[in-house]
């Protein structure tokens, strides 16, 4: 029998026992809906996590350090690399070189130092870090009170919520941090902070270089300029913003709580820990960076970039590994959600078997007649298959729609809840097109499998017996 005839007969047979077949199809729909709902939740959560991470700047950033950096000593992966003493230093030409690598959006020096900030004549010691203007799009500044730096050189600071609390003399509560940033920001915005810092000043002007006793290696011409003095300075900075979230959560204990515009920070020539280490090598007053942050255009190819930078002789650090385990986590989550979702479909497929076996009993005579007038075993088998398949496709389509609707409702409900909690709405439910296709196909295949036994049984029916049956 040809496919159009098969389909036509199958559909008309399904219509004959409308109630029973509808119930079976609804069973499949519910199964597919639960599968779609589960998987789209998994996919949605994964997308949400990726989106969050992406915006947080963790995903797309590679931190480059020199092998000479203390932090890198003894790292296993470096055993084969050049010894720290022979490796390159991370200076401005290197930064520019890194910036020219493919897939690099920007490479900016990490300027960070621990220093004293005075507010209301009280000193506060904290880590200060410089931020490039691109950090404006960082997720952490989404809910910033006040505004981002007005320019890259403006004498302005953004402070982190915890530091704001410290400035105001409030002790951060343990447990859930419910403090309203807006409340904290109100008395602070527009106020001045005085930052004290150690400025490194090139000392070529001072003729007394020899006096510091470093002339012993006079054959090394670079050493001549390697001297500098350190001068204590003060700078008044205006508080322009208070950030709710922690923009540097990835850095753990070294994270900063006060942020300066990058160019301003560079112009200050603040004494960096590396300056001391590299005192024997620093040829010019060109700064040497302890680390350079590299932002990539395409996070998917972050590994290629890391390899390229490693080839240049530096160490790299990204949370690629973390994202990889995150992906692994979501793969497992999706798998489990899929299994749970499929359970309902498995139950529904038993419904198909039941319905079709019932149909065989009911249509025994009809099958006998069809065989008597020339239907072959395979015609009968295909007809039952077609009925199972039709229920599967129909159930799949209705199920996908149902699953999507369930997702929308839960999305809506959750967002209402989030709104009540004064949290921004999130879109964590996603039904991608491939899932729609795959779910319908899966329902179809499951239904066909469920139809195997009934179809085989119908095909083997003895026509003489079937015709005798009343």
């Amino acid at each position, binding site marked *: 029998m*040809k496919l159009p005839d098969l389909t036509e007969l199958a559909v008309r047979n399904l219509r004959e026992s409308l109630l029973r077949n509808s119930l079976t199809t609804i069973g499949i729909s519910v199964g597919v809906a639960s599968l779609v709902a589960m998987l789209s939740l998994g996919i949605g959560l994964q997308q949400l996590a990726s989106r969050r991470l992406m915006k947080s700047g963790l995903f797309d950033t590679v931190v480059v350090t020199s092998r000479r950096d203390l932090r890198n000593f003894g790292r296993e992966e470096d055993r084969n690399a050049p010894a720290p003493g022979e490796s390159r230093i991370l200076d401005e030409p290197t930064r520019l070189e890194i910036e020219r690598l493919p897939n690099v959006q920007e490479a900016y020096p990490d300027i960070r130092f621990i220093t004293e900030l005075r507010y209301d004549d009280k000193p506060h010691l904290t880590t200060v870090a410089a931020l490039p203007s691109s950090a404006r799009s960082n997720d952490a500044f989404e809910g910033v009170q006040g505004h981002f730096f007005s320019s890259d050189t403006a004498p302005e600071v953004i402070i982190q919520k915890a530091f704001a609390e410290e400035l105001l003399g409030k002790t951060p509560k343990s447990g859930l941090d419910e403090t309203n940033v807006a409340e904290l920001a109100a008395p602070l915005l527009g106020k001045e902070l005085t930052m004290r810092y150690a400025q490194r000043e090139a000392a070529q002007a001072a003729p007394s270089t020899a006096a510091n006793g470093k002339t012993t290696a006079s054959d090394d011409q670079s050493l001549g300029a390697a001297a500098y003095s350190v001068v204590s300075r003060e700078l008044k900075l205006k508080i322009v913003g208070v950030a709710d979230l922690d923009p540097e959560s990835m850095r753990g204990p070294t994270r900063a709580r006060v942020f300066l515009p990058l160019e301003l920070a560079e112009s200050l020539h603040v004494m960096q820990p590396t300056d001391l280490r590299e005192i024997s090598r620093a040829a010019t007053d060109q700064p040497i960076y302890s680390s350079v942050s590299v932002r990539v255009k395409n996070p998917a190819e972050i590994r290629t970039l890391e390899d390229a930078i490693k080839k240049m002789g530096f160490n790299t650090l990204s949370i690629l590994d973390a994202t990889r385990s995150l992906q692994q986590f979501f793969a497992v989550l999706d798998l489990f959600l899929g299994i749970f979702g499929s359970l309902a479909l498995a139950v529904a497929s038993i419904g198909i078997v039941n319905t079709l076996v019932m149909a065989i009993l009911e249509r025994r005579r009809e099958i006998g007649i069809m065989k*008597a007038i020339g239907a072959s075993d395979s015609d009968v088998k295909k007809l039952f298959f077609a009925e199972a398949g039709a229920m599967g496709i129909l159930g799949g389509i209705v199920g996908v729609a149902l699953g999507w609707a369930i997702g929308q409702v839960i999305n809506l409900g959750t967002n209402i809840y989030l709104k009540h909690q004064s949290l921004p709405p999130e879109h964590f439910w996603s039904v991608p097109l491939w899932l729609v296709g795959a779910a319908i196909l899966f329902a179809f295949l499951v239904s066909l499998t469920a139809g195997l036994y009934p179809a085989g049984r119908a095909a083997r029916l003895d026509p003489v017996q079937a015709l005798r049956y009343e």
Partner: protein
Amino acid sequence: MVSTDSSPRNSAPTVNAPAIHTEQLCRHYRMGETLIRAVDGVTLKVRAGEFVALLGSSGSGKSSVLNLIAGLDRPSSGSVFVQERDLAQLSRQELARYRLHTVGMVFQSFNLIASMTLAENVELPMRFAEVDRGKRDSLAREGLARVGLQARMNHRPSELSGGEQQRAALARALINQPQLLLADEPTGNLDSHTGTEIMNMVREFNQQLGMTVVMVTHERALAERYAQRLIFLADGKLIGDESNSAVVAKTAPDDARTDGVRA
């Protein structure tokens, strides 16, 4: 046991090979402990174009013989040849094709599919035969017109009288132009008037289309009125084979025609 080998003494010379030929045909089956010999060594030849009645009381094995000829059942032993093909040797698939193209069947209880209209019922064998969609409509229409049901095409069987249902069943049996018409008590559920009407149609197909007809009945009078030959069965065995001279004489002039292939 009576052999039918010498039976066609009455009719025209047998130029054709027999349309149906059974040889020591047996169909035994087990029901609990007892072995039922539904058909027990029947040897029979039916010429092409012949109208044969299988007579016997219920349980005589006449329907079982018909089912074996129809390819709905397989012999336990012996053989059935239809147009020189041994049905016992055919695969299930080949047997289905044989039923589809060579045999048309009508039953006592009509066996139309209740959920389909008459047109759809008649069309069904053409679906199995994969006849073009476009041709099927007109063929089904013609088929129903031939049995006088053109006005009832879109009715379901339950909306029709028994006689009309049997006419539709006849139209369905003939739709793939078979050479063999097998009828199992075709008038059993009909009153005598409609029974006659149906039998006249069957005779017409036999005479005008040259179809070989094998009819199972327990009504001797009916058989004598229409069949050229009466074969008697009892307990699965063939107990008598008579030429029906009254009918043979009437139809003799037509016997010259060949194997029942329709125009």
